[in-house]
């Protein structure tokens, strides 16, 4: 069976040669992983959908510059991560100018329906610093290696490891505290 990377590379070649439908195939191939990633990062479907669209628009714009030196998924994750970061920055500015919106109200807006998941854990994850939350999602949900995470987030491998460790420790601490209460 051909790997996702090989199929994507062939589709990119087709797209570069003018086959617009090849782009649809690329989107179909990677949509789910990007949507789920963004959903974990932003916490609601509506924003995840918008950011997913923005990610693929950027892919459409810059795909001709993709040389195939790194995994396409890494390149794609990096774009999605940048799109999410831009979103967080805009959200921060909006929060600054609207006094009645706090972080909790934004998170609880159309939340992901994770019935199987401990709600305290879900809330604790959403309250983690953005960097730690992203590393946690990349590492556990997407199953990426630290090396890939460091490339996507443009940080050192050590920084990725340390932030991951802090994220896990923070989650453990918060769950312990909530159990005591």
């Amino acid at each position: 069976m051909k790997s996702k990377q090989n199929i994507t590379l062939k589709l990119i070649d087709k797209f570069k040669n003018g086959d617009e439908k090849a782009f649809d195939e690329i989107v179909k191939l990677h949509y789910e992983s990007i949507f789920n990633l963004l959903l974990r990062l932003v916490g609601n479907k509506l924003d995840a959908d918008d950011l997913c669209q923005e990610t693929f628009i950027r892919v459409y714009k810059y795909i001709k510059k993709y040389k195939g030196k790194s995994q396409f998924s890494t390149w794609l994750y990096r774009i999605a991560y940048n799109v999410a970061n831009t979103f967080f920055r805009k959200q921060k500015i909006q929060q600054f100018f609207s006094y009645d919106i706090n972080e909790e109200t934004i998170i609880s807006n159309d939340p992901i329906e994770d019935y199987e998941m401990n709600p305290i854990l879900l809330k604790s994850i959403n309250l983690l610093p953005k960097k730690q939350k992203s590393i946690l999602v990349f590492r556990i949900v997407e199953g990426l290696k630290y090396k890939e995470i460091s490339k996507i987030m443009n940080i050192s491998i050590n920084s990725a490891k340390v932030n991951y460790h802090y994220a896990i420790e923070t989650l453990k601490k918060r769950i312990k505290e909530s159990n005591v209460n």
Partner: protein
Amino acid sequence: MSIKNQIKNLRNPKLSQNHVEKFINDLKDEIEIRKKRTTKRIVFSSVFIIFLLPIFSYITFLSDSNDIYLISEENSIEQKQDFNLDQHNLHFESIDYIIDNSDLIISDCVLSCDMAEEYNSCIVNFALGI
């Protein structure tokens, strides 16, 4: 169950084929809209550069007066035109250059009044502020 396992078991929402198709259609529409917007922007910028910028430049050029100053042994610039060299920070390097290029707009040359005195009078056109 450990935290890692709990997170791993996060239930990803099931996306139907229709959802993906709808996403692709919306994406294509948005790409088309942005392409048109980009084209409009390029056309507008080109029109601005090709037509409006030269007009603005010409207007700016016209608004600067081309003054004539007489330099001679007897009359210094200051005396003749009430022109203070230090104030305007205008200097000419060579009087020959001024004579040869008397119709040029000179903005940043080095003038030596001593050199000007070595020659007989000459008329120089130059514009200020360019």
